[in-house]
């Protein structure tokens, strides 16, 4: 049966393949929390990781904009409490703490199609993908030119060029993630799906914030 690989493994794989994941630490126990948090710069985000909980926001296990150790400890406790409230015998894999970045949210993904092999997807986050279905697809291999084409093809592309006085987003970094996603899927046939949602892009960088990998 295919299943999502653990966040720990996914994080390891992405680091190995040099994906630009936002600075992330997986904490397994409360006593390591503060020590681990020292590796990151406040403000940070905290997310409980559990395969039992698919919709994190529904279960109230995401805490954003944590500014100090005290808030962090409280968030940790609350996350565990909320998870248990959501499901009695919830299996907790760990707690992710991450630096925070601001910018435009986009989605990059891959799905292995029975007919065509890996299909890479690019779209804008939130309502753009849900309501407007403003997404583009390419069949791997997706090289740089093609990746750029898929980004430019979207109706919302103008947002990345900078509107209303905002700075131009670093599209090259998105191109790079798309290309690497294609490459990873081509080289590892066991990977069925990749979901980077969101990836946040601003004028300096693009960072993968949430990531999930489905394997056979």
């Amino acid at each position, binding site marked *: 049966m295919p299943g999502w690989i653990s966040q720990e493994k996914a994080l390891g794989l992405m680091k190995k393949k040099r994906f630009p994941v936002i600075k992330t630490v997986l904490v397994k126990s409360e006593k390591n929390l503060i020590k681990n948090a020292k590796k990151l710069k406040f403000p940070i985000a905290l997310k409980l990781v559990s395969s039992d909980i698919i919709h994190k926001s529904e279960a109230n296990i995401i805490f954003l904009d944590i500014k100090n150790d005290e808030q962090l400890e409280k968030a940790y406790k609350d996350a565990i409490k909320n998870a248990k409230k959501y499901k009695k015998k919830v299996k907790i894999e760990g707690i992710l703490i991450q630096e925070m970045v601001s910018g435009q949210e986009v989605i990059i993904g891959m799905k292995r199609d029975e007919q065509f092999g890996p299909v890479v997807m690019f779209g804008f986050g939130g309502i753009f993908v849900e309501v407007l279905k403003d997404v*583009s*697809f390419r069949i791997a291999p997706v090289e740089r030119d093609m990746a750029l084409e898929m980004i430019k093809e979207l109706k919302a592309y103008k947002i990345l060029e900078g509107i209303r006085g905002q700075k131009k987003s670093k599209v090259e970094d998105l191109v790079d993630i798309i290309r690497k996603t294609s490459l990873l899927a081509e080289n590892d046939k066991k990977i069925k799906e990749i979901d980077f949602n969101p990836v946040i892009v601003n004028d300096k960088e693009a960072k993968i914030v949430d990531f999930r990998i489905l394997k056979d």
Partner: protein
Amino acid sequence: MPNKKIKIRNLEGLFNPKSVAVIGASRDHNSVGYGILRNLNSGCVFQCKYCKPFLGPIYPVNPYAEKVQGIKSYASILGVEDDVDLAIISVPAKIVPLVMEECVEKKVKAMIIISAGFAELGEEGIKLQDKVSDIAKKSKIPVLGPNCLGIIRPYSNLNASFAPAMPPQGNIAFISQSGALADSIIDWAIEARYGFSSVVSYGNRADLDVVDFLEYFGEDEETRVITIYIEGIKNGKRFMQVAEKVSKKKPIIALKAGRTKHGREAISTHTGSLAGSYKIYKAAFKQTGIILADNVEEMFDIAKTLAYQPLCKGNNIAIVSNAGGPAVLAADYCEQSGINLPELKKSTLNKIEKSGVMHKAYSRRNPLDLVGDALPERYKVAVDTLLSEKYVDGLIVIQTLQTMTDPEEDANVIIEAQKKYPDKPIICTYMGGHFTKSGIRLLEKNYIPDYNDPKKAVMAMKSLIERFQYLKKK
């Protein structure tokens, strides 16, 4: 992408046979086996002027008859003394493998299995179809079908199908996963005088699949444009590999069915194929240069222009019209689809005015409105002058019908202009019907495409522009 070299299969036995056997040839007027034999020996069941009988020997095979439709019949294909190139099989599904073995022994060059009752029926049928595939694979004889309409190749006087008639000869190949759609297209083509190089219904593709036909028509001298109606693909990667190669030679236009959930359900009960998500197909088409059509009409509209006209080497189009309304519509459609309408230069207008034939209220801009009472001489000045300008890459000519309009003479003006400027595309919109028909026929006989709506003309011009850009990029 796998770089396996795949040899193009020799399909001459299918498209250009010297002799044909019909196994399951029948005396019963309502049977498929009757229709196929009739199509071969007279061209069509529904007679029309494009129907021509097959010129080589035809061998009906029917163990219960001495003669079928007046032709000597054989108990088995093995009883035929001479060589048989093409065997058309229309017998109950169960005995198809047996009949195929005989065809292998007879060393036929190709087989068409019309019979239904294979993968489309589920488990049992799949097993039977696997047998068909195995025989095809082992013998290396190309096999079309099962569960298909067959093929029609007007250039070979070959109607090896149970389609009711033969379409006119032309330069467009049509590969269809639906046999019934092909039937209707043929009926329409006869009325519209729309020509085909071949029509192929490939059914359950136990052996030959859409890629084999793409490759064949990629090399076929009679084919300029390939159209495909497709529900599902078996091997997406190979399809892309072949489509990319063929696209560089000839335009491929595809119409994909099964884009929605309901559509997909209808397919899996229909031809037993898996339809991928439409977005994925769209990506695959785009990446391999395939032009995507939204509907049947659009597919053949675009195909006609791509088959008839030279590519448009730039994005600058001029519009000539004898009426304001349709010209404004055409201008709107151009802008919406990213086509530029260049301003007419003073020098151009001077040339036009010097002719002395223009109405004083003519528009003096692009679209060039010649005013309603335009006679052919006005069209001639406008069309010739605009085509002679370097900054005009292609021309759309619109004609509405008014009391003094002369559709045939206007057509002659346009035909002559194209001869003078053969590198620039011309597309016409003769709006109307009954009284413009003769003019339209004249245009199309001379390979100038006509559409009854400016939107279609603009779309067709766009396809010529995009095709040129695609080839330039490659």
